[in-house]
């Protein structure tokens, strides 16, 4: 059947419409991903920002012989339910340190309980109605308000939500990442240098290469099993310690560092190598004095990205026991420690509403650090990008 010109142009229009539809759908897919990102960050900000504020109330504290034995009596009975027990417990110690306090009564701003905190922030709270009335009255008198929560950054974990913070987890993260970096950076760079500059192209080299790519795709939890069986089970290293956690993460980060270092080495033009050989350098001198310095920014970029990945990793650390409850900040490589993601995981398991806020607050801190790290890597790459 012969087609008229109109038929053909109608077909053509339909085909172009279809083409345009694909464009819009695919654009929508990208938009969906972006939308999710926005929703996610909005959700975390809404949930987490209140964690940086903490309710404080002004109460009269009685420093007497009696309260040094029974610190719970230091404040009025009505008020003592509203004041964090963590503060009251410190009273005897403070009186010991400062004998002049004895026998005085002082108005002080102190940390309120998590329930008061949640009530002031307008969330569900388990306070009784009469307690709520007291808090409302305190607010009217200007004796209760939300202030910047410095405790969140200076103290470790606590079973009392109002006193728990991320300091010990942050310290654990720093120690763990130091171990990770100290182990994986030299080994990774050395491996990459060997593969790119020294190794002959034979079966052995290919085996290593396939193996590295495979290692990069192994589920992280299996590295946890390795750490548990080898470092803790076989070598008897201390469980839950930054040493074991760091070494486990190092083995995980190794492929990332190797692969990015190789890319950096490969982008160094051969003319530099030829010139080095030309003036009588040996292979190692060529690598050490010419290739490595040029490739260094690329190596740094890759290592920062690898480190950021290691910093967000939780599963292998749970397996080697780094989810311990750590109230005190410790600076030892062999003591039990926890890291930020593990702290977030622990808090996420707590039933109280106040801990959801802490969890989101911890997440905000972690995301801020990670985004800073990644941005640094991007800036480094841009700054040292060189066209040969």
């Amino acid at each position, binding site marked *: 059947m012969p087609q008229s010109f109109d038929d053909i142009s109608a077909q053509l229009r339909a*085909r*172009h419409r*279809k*083409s345009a539809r*694909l*464009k819009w*759908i695919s*654009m*929508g*897919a*990208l938009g969906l*991903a972006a939308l*999710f990102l926005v929703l*996610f960050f909005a*959700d975390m900000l809404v949930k987490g920002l209140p964690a940086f504020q903490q309710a404080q109330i002004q109460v009269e504290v009685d420093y007497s012989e009696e309260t040094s034995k029974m610190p719970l009596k230091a404040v009025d009975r009505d008020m003592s339910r509203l004041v964090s027990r963590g503060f009251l417990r410190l009273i005897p110690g403070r009186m010991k340190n400062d004998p002049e306090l004895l026998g005085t009564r002082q108005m002080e701003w102190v940390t309120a309980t998590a329930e008061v905190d949640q009530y002031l922030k307008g969330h569900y709270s388990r306070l009784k109605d009469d307690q709520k009335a007291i808090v409302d009255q305190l607010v009217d008198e200007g004796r209760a308000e939300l202030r910047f929560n410095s405790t969140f950054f200076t103290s470790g974990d606590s079973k009392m939500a109002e006193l728990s913070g991320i300091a010990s987890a942050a310290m654990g993260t720093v120690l763990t990442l130091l171990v990770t970096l100290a182990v994986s950076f*030299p080994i990774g760079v*050395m*491996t990459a*240098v060997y593969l790119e500059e*020294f*190794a002959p192209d034979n079966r052995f080299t290919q*085996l*290593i290469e*396939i193996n*590295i790519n495979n*290692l990069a*795709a*192994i*589920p992280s*939890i*299996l590295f946890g*099993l*390795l750490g*548990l*069986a080898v470092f803790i*089970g*076989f070598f008897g290293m201390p469980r839950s310690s930054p040493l074991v956690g760091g070494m486990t993460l190092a083995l995980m980060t*190794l*492929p990332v560092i190797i692969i990015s270092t190789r890319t950096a080495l490969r982008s160094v033009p051969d003319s530099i190598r030829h010139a080095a050989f030309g003036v009588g350098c040996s*292979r190692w001198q060529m690598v050490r004095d010419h290739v490595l310095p040029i490739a260094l920014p690329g190596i740094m970029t890759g290592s920062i990205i690898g480190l*950021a990945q290691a*910093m*967000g*990793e*939780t*599963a292998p650390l*749970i*397996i080697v026991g780094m989810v311990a409850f750590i109230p005190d900040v410790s600076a030892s490589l062999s003591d039990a420690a926890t890291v930020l*993601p*593990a702290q*977030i*995981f622990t808090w*996420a398991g707590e039933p109280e509403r106040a801990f959801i806020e802490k*969890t*989101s607050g911890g*997440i905000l801190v*972690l*995301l801020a650090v990670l*985004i800073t790290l990644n941005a640094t890597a*991007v800036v480094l790459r841009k700054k040292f990008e060189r066209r040969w």
Partner: protein
Amino acid sequence: MQTNQLLAMFSGSLLLLGLIAYLLGRSKAARVRASGASMYSQPDQYAWFTVLSTAGPALAVGAVASILMLSLGAEVSPLYLLIGCLLVACIGLVVGIQMVRPNFHARQAIESVIRFILAGAALISIFTTLGILVSIIFEAIRFFQMQNFWDFITGTTWNPGASFLEAAGRAKEGASAAQFGSVPLFAGTFMITFIAMLVAIPVGLLAAIYMAEFAPARIRTIAKPVLEVLAGIPTVVYGFFAAITVAPIIVGIAGFFGLEASFNNALAPGIVMGIMIIPFISSLSDDVINSVPDSMRQGALALGLTKGEMIRDIVVPAALPGIISASLLAVSRALGETMIVVMAAGMRPNLTANPLEDMTTVTVRIVAALTGDQEFASAETLSAFALGLVLFVVTLALNLVSVMMIRRFREKYRVNNL
């Protein structure tokens, strides 16, 4: 004496000996050179050679001896070991200085040692893989000595309940015998992986098509790093998000349609995991689509295809091996993903096809088995390694197939950067 102190003493004295070696080696080389002999290498290179000959053998002896001691449990005092190592170092120092002669090629000697060290570093990645394999297999074998392998693979009940009593030699007190049938765990894992892929593959692939074929360069340069932010979010954060935000929404929506959903439903972790994997698929597919040769596009357009038809009939089929490879890698990631499911999926092994019910996965059970206060030798703890072994085998197979697919694509179009 403490191990830490011994280590400090060892490294301290080794450093000191190394310094002595460097100074002695250099002064001897300088002396020989001053006497008018023509030497193969620079004095510094001789000095470094003596340092290597001092520290190398001592470190090697120390490492081998301590590994032997740890693995065999031999009772040798660490102090003797320390003294032995330092003796070896002293001998190395003397020999090294003896070898500083005009016709000795110190530079080549250093080079070969360095090459040896670099190759040793490259071996560590192999040792890591072997370590994972060996440690998992050994513990898994211990598990299969207690439990029947066939029951593990085909059993439909996972109930480790009373296994700790057996380990304590009190098996009779247990209410029910422990059962380790892994089918419900794998069913749950595949269900959540399937949901994740349902989200990740269409969205990731379409986003890649948009970025590679339609988007102006400016959007491309913004979109790629923004998507990569998704990939950089720690999984523990995704898990929290799935459990606290997404799961209640799903329960609410299901309730609106008159369906009952569990708060630990499989849908929430599945969807969030899918979102996590989007950038993984999109950036790999984007690379693959970009390396389809332009001549194919030009040919298609010249024959009168619309852009949409060109993409659907020419570009995507040409890029298919690479896209499949990306998807397989993504599946392997989803299978091994832990934190999202630990926090948002259930703990209850549940053999069901309804994604609104709670179900558990392999990785959840691994974590559960290793975080309880169980004795290490109990069947429940060891079951983690058996599950880990299966996980390792499955992901390894997926990775290998994916590598083969991408290699086929690379050979077909002679792309170098994939």
